[in-house]
């Protein structure tokens, strides 16, 4: 049994960590956060140069031919530094969809540009009245002379303001289809907004906007798979952010003095920090669990992967990650006291990201219900009943 990172992954981790430590400290991040774009083209270019944007994609499209395990390594480090660049929206979601659903021509025309850092994507799936539902879009697609046109409104489109191309879900032939829509096409309007954690997002309206179908056929399975992958990526990011929060909090308990002693000598704070640590270990375990659910399917022979068990395992991970994110972010502010309320001090920024993550792609109540309706993780069994 080996649950540790491979040597290659360890190397990747330390390379990314080193870069972020030197070039993405809280002051550098603050500057990026307050910039007009809210993310840095220069940093994006260095991520591209390091090959981070092509990790899971085939060499045929200039990718590194690795897998989700490497993406998870990057996400965890990004979580630790609260990276603001659109990695999740472009690489995990947008390019993830193109890779999973696109034709070879579509992949060829999009993935190399993404991997080179020249093209940004965004997934436009959620809608104003649909909450987290992705199975019944009100946005419709109609066939036109040279493709399709799309009409509808999308919300919570992560990375919308700077995306060059949107991957849009829409109702077509009684099923859900995926479409590519250029951001500068006619009939496309973006209402840009900023999330609580600083990430750029927005709504997108489509008024008979020209679109190209991404792949073909019912896209429900692909949507489920890519969102599961994105949730597993968020689990890794959350672990990085939680670990950084707890580390920062423990350091604060050791250095902040009140009543003539470090506040960490108080057992009430020691025990709460210990509980936060135990919570973090559970979250790390479930981020690993989600990673194995995704990589297990990657490594399975074509068609051998089991979508139901993958989804179930990712839901279970999200349940634990969501509750841990909430507990650790709230406790970190409380144990810091007043300083934790300030924009100047980093702990509140971690809390913001850890508040948004559990509500991205799904919330903990829905996840719990969905997991239960899939039968949960343990088979009912009692000897005298069998």
């Amino acid at each position, binding site marked *: *049994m080996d649950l540790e990172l491979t040597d290659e992954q360890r190397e990747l981790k330390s390379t990314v960590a080193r870069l972020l430590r030197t070039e993405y400290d809280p002051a550098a991040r603050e500057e990026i956060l307050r910039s007009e774009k809210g993310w840095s083209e220069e940093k994006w270019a260095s991520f591209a140069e390091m090959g981070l944007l092509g990790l899971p994609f085939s060499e045929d499209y200039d990718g590194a031919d690795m897998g989700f395990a490497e993406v998870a390594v990057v996400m965890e480090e990004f979580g630790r530094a609260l990276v603001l660049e659109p990695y999740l929206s472009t690489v995990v979601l947008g390019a993830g969809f193109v890779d999973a659903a696109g034709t070879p021509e579509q992949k060829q025309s999009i993935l190399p540009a993404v991997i080179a850092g020249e093209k940004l994507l965004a997934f436009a799936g959620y809608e104003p009245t649909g909450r987290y539902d992705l199975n019944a879009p009100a946005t419709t697609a109609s066939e036109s002379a040279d493709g399709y046109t799309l009409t509808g409104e999308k919300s919570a489109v992560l990375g919308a303001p700077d995306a060059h191309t949107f991957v849009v879900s829409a109702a077509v032939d009684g099923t859900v289809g995926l479409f590519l829509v250029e951001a500068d096409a006619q009939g496309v309007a973006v209402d840009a907004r900023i999330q609580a954690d600083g990430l750029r997002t927005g709504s997108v309206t489509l008024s008979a906007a020209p679109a190209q179908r991404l792949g073909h056929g019912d896209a429900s399975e692909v949507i489920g798979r890519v969102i599961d992958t994105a949730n597993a990526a968020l689990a890794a990011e959350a672990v990085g952010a939680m670990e950084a929060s707890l580390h920062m909090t423990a350091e604060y308990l050791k250095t902040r003095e009140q009543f003539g002693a470090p506040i*960490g000598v108080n057992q009430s704070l020691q025990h709460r920090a210990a509980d936060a*640590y135990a919570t973090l*270990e*559970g979250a790390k375990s479930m981020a690993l669990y989600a990673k194995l659910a995704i990589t297990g399917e990657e490594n399975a022979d074509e068609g051998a992967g089991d979508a139901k068990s993958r989804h179930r395992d990712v839901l279970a991970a999200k*349940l634990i990650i969501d509750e841990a994110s909430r507990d650790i972010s709230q406790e970190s502010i409380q144990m810091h006291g007043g300083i934790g309320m300030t924009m100047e001090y980093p702990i509140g920024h971690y809390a913001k990201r850890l508040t948004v993550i559990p509500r991205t792609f799904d919330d903990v109540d829905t996840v719990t219900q969905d997991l239960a309706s899939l039968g949960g993780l343990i088979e009912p069994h009692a000897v005298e009943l069998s």
Partner: protein
Amino acid sequence: MDQLLNQEERDFAQHMRAFYRTEIPEEIRYRVAVGEELSKDDIVTTQRILNKYGYAVPNWPVEWGGQDWTPVQRHIWLEEMQLACVPQPLAFNASMVGPVIATFGSQEIKERFLPATANLDIWWSQGFSEPNAGSDLASLKTSAVRKGDVYVVNGQKTWTTLGQYGDWIFMLVRTDPSVKKQAGISFLLIDMKTPGVTVRPIELIDGSVEVNEVFFENVEVPVENLVGEENKGWTYAKFLLGNERTGIARIGMSKVNLARAKAYAAMTRTSRGTLLDDPLFSARLTKLEAQLTALEFTQLRILSTQVAGNDKPDPRSSVLKLHGSQLQQDITELLVDVLGPQGLDFIDNAATGDGFSDLPPASVDAIRDYFNYRKVTIYGGSSEVQRGIISKAILGL
């Protein structure tokens, strides 16, 4: 878990799975599976079968009946045992006094005790806690005063689990009251039939009498019953308590109990269908399943970083104890809630009068276990002690 194991480990798991199910009597495993109390005979019978095949004390040195296993193999051995509802080897023998004697005892004392300890020919009791020495164990007062070739022991031990079956008791005694409290403690073995030893049962809130007080009044103990060196007992005790923490999360057992509660819930009718269709119940159950899975993976993560032969306790095992004990309690509580009003009676067996309907399964043990399991966050280092270990050893507070 199976898909994480390599081929060799998987074969080993298969082997243990089959072994437990073919060699350990069905009726004993049944009693464990439905939460019935075990007799002394059940425990002795099981341990002797395990010992015959070398599976009673795998954590001991090979020359004394142990196995040269990897940490993963040891984990599989225990996990499969719990999943098969096999009673574990008596902890006082297998994980407490045995390893102490094997590590710190003289050749003579090893030969005298280890084979009989592995085979449960001697039933050991633990004499550590005292009325005024609980979490602060080192403040114990029971004294052993050397007089010629005997120690004269006076004092009182408490919380001696299954002491009513005990043949011998391993004790922490104060041999030097003049030094720092940890420095004056010795590890002594006492035959419980020695004059002056009295065992008094303590009735617990679950109705059981599994723990006892043990009184010592001028008990004369031959000096050759001292383990290791005089006044080094605290070192041996810390070694023993470190062993106690591993495996205390009892994840395999919690899986069995949760699967059991779920099966009962599936046949419990409500206005919505079954209890599993109740949204709040099912949310609670589902969270427990996810938490148990998280704990299992934490255990596997700790295991995968452990190198064979390194027996130093990982401070992260405090997380296993802290969350594992909490989960055990949450699952017993869930079972009580599955039963509803019929789970509230304090009864010894499920017999009902002529013409009355049968009681639902678990109606005998659920509420008793709920009260019995309050102990699991107290023994083996209370939750508060574990939090203290985490905050000091891991967070550096």
